[in-house]
């Protein structure tokens, strides 16, 4: 029996590699798509919070007009945060950290605003304010949940991108590691309340 020539063996190996490469590529594409979808949800929830802020500021203004400094801080933080958007194709860890920092400032400004509302019993008794606050709370909850889901998707994707031999194909096709949300810098310490 004739030995199979070297070229045939090499040919088979190349075809197998090709199959594996296609498979790895398709897997990475669908995981990348999952991350993008999770990211879109995160942005939607932050946008939702952003949309609630003017209404909240106006309601508080009606009862606590002289807290203008705190109110202005919220509006400014919001404006700054809306300027920073991240393209899902470019979710690098640096970009994401920048986005998180900007949104974190909004969270802190909002925290201070809600803290001062404690001093206004009339405001707290206002049903509209109570419902607005509930909406804000619900939105914060949604943000937390969407961030959790995003981190899960990003982690799964990152593991595939970095694992051998997928990393060879990932490099070849330009799939790079994506960033994820770190625990908020202000989360471990409660917002300061000054009297």
């Amino acid at each position, binding site marked *: 029996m004739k030995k199979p020539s070297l070229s045939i063996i090499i040919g088979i190996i190349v075809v197998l590699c090709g199959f594996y490469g296609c498979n790895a590529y398709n897997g990475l594409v669908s995981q990348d798509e999952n991350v993008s979808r999770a990211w879109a949800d995160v942005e939607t929830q932050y946008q939702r919070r952003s949309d609630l802020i003017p209404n909240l500021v106006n309601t508080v203004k009606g009862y606590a007009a002289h807290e203008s400094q705190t109110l202005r801080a919220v509006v400014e933080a919001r404006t700054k945060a809306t300027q920073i958007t991240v393209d899902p194709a470019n979710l690098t860890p640096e970009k994401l950290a920048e986005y998180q920092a900007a949104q974190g400032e909004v969270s802190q400004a909002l925290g201070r605003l809600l803290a001062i509302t404690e001093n206004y019993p009339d405001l707290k008794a206002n049903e509209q304010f109570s419902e607005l606050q*509930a909406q804000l709370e619900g939105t914060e909850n*949604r943000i937390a949940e969407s961030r959790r889901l995003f981190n899960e998707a990003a982690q799964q994707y990152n593991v595939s991108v970095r694992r051998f031999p997928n990393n060879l194909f990932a490099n070849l096709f330009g799939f790079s590691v994506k960033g994820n949300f770190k625990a908020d810098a202000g989360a471990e310490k409660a917002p300061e309340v000054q009297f």
Partner: protein
Amino acid sequence: MALTHRLNMKKCLLSLLALLLTVAVAAATYTPDNLPIPYLQDKRQYVSNPDGILSQTAVDSLNLWLGQMEKSHGVQTVLAVVEHIEGGDTYDFSMALGRKYGIGRKDQNSGLIILLSTGDRAYTILTGRGLEGTLPDAICKRIENRQMLPALREGDWDDAMLQTVRAITAYVDGDDSLVGSSDFEEDDAYALMAFCLFMAVALGLIGLAVWYDNRRKSYCPSCKQYKMKKISSYATTNRSLGIRTHHDTYRCTHCYFTKEIHWDEDIHSHGGSAAAGSALGGSFFGGGSSFGGGSFGGGSFGGGGASGRF
């Protein structure tokens, strides 16, 4: 020796009993993992009331209303009233519960969790992703402020839950985009389908048997062809034995060979097969009407709803 052994046994049993007692006491603080969900055993039970905080009357009414809500709008609810939960945060607890069981139908994500922890003095209404439009956070808060809170402040847990569910039902009824759960009809549909399939197979088998019987009868032993035709037949009846004997004469259309076939028919057994058929049908449809355990559809929660303390 035997005595010490027995003493050891007794000690063992006592310590086991003590352990059970501590478990029973500790169980008053619930985690999402050990909170009993009666719905899983009986799909008419939406209320988890392990500490007996709600009266049986209230539980029955709540189960009835929540059952109607699931039937008409596909909203799958878990309502839990407990003494204490681990951590004391009703929102976190509800989210964990929703994640664990996947409450709500998957296609419209219409899960709803209502949790009241009387010892922690905290409550949450948690809406599934698909319910956020029907019951926005502000509306949940309004229901809590107007319906739940006044009763909670008076310690009237029954009324707090009844009022809350009634208010929620009103909002859900106003939303036509929510499609009713076809779960109950689905069971019947499956039973019907299974029955039809069974009937089709049975008829097919009978048809096959008849065809085979005819073919066998048409076989001509002389020219080995299937060309025999029945040309005459008569029957004799023996009433005392209850047997009718048929005498069929067949002739081959090819070689004109003739053969006679005799077969007995039991007169008494008439109608037997019909009775068997109806009995089968009865048992098939009877199975659908008994209530089994429910199952959750895999709905997801995005964090919508409202929580509060009193």
